[in-house]
């Protein structure tokens, strides 16, 4: 197994773990953490793709995409955390309501 495949598979596994947690957990903080897991998996895959050819320079385009992605992930996380906080202030809960309210 090459370095690319090892890092790539780790990234895919992180993505899968995060995806399961996003769907399975109702608590909003867990969902936000899980989305960050998925994001980290994608960044790891992109980093692995950049080094696919084992010799020569790594590809700078996936590196730039990871940098952009990290910043977007940070801002999305901050915004969703503040939304969660607002939901908690309004309803006293940190989970999504069940089917059709209450």
């Amino acid at each position, binding site marked *: 197994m090459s370095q690319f*495949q090892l890092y790539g598979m780790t990234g895919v596994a992180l993505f899968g773990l995060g995806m399961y947690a996003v769907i399975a957990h109702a608590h909003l903080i867990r969902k936000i953490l899980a989305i960050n897991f998925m994001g980290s998996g994608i960044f790891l895959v992109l980093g692995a793709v950049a080094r696919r050819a084992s010799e020569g320079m790594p590809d700078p385009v996936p590196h730039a995409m990871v940098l952009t992605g990290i*910043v977007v992930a940070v801002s999305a996380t901050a*915004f969703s955390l503040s939304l969660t906080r607002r939901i908690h202030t309004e309803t006293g809960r940190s989970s999504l309501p069940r089917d059709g309210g209450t």
Partner: protein
Amino acid sequence: MMKLDNPSSWFSLPRFLVFLLTLLLTFALGMTLFSLPPAPFQLLDTIHRSLPHSGVTNPVTAVLLNFRAYDTLLEIGVLLVAVFGIRAFPEAFQEHSPSLPAPSEVLLALVRLLVPLMVLIAGYLLWAGSHAPGGAFQAGAVLGAGAVLILLAGLPLSKWFHGWWFRAALILGFMLFLGVGFWAMAMEGHFLEYPRDRAEDLILLIEAALTVSIGCILATLFLGLPDAAPVKDAANEKS
């Protein structure tokens, strides 16, 4: 569906189905990764051919600030949208603003030692971005971390968050980037297509503005819009 929240009955049919489906998806993604063709595109060669004209020698910075400058412009736009969103409901922060304990002497001494160093490192990272790993986002992250350190030490930085110049600093990077983009359009005919002999200066100018903006934005994202009243009290006590 209520069972999903109940730790005592962690096994349920919907949850098991979700588990199976995500497992399948993960395997499908893994198979895709293994079956990728070795090197399908010539992007690397194109970048290395165009690198001498980009104004910088670090290929990642060249991609971020020149070849794919659109992405970076929209990225700072996304950061700004998040800040606007957070600033849009300040009342959420007034009820639950955590009151920090009084800062210890050790923390204050650490802040006095580290924050000037962090500003220096941010400046270095900004400058290094043109030829080595580094650049506006790394430098902005270090600046933002410095601001977070100051806030955690309880120093009265957060009163600045309401000032007009702090708001100006938030949008400085985006507006300057946009302005340079339109200026380049007037000069060269395409949006964000820098004149080749000016590219180096323009990239440094944009990166400097981005560093300041990203530092301020990250500090805002960390703090939200602070509770105005206690901060004023703290400021009066200190001054």
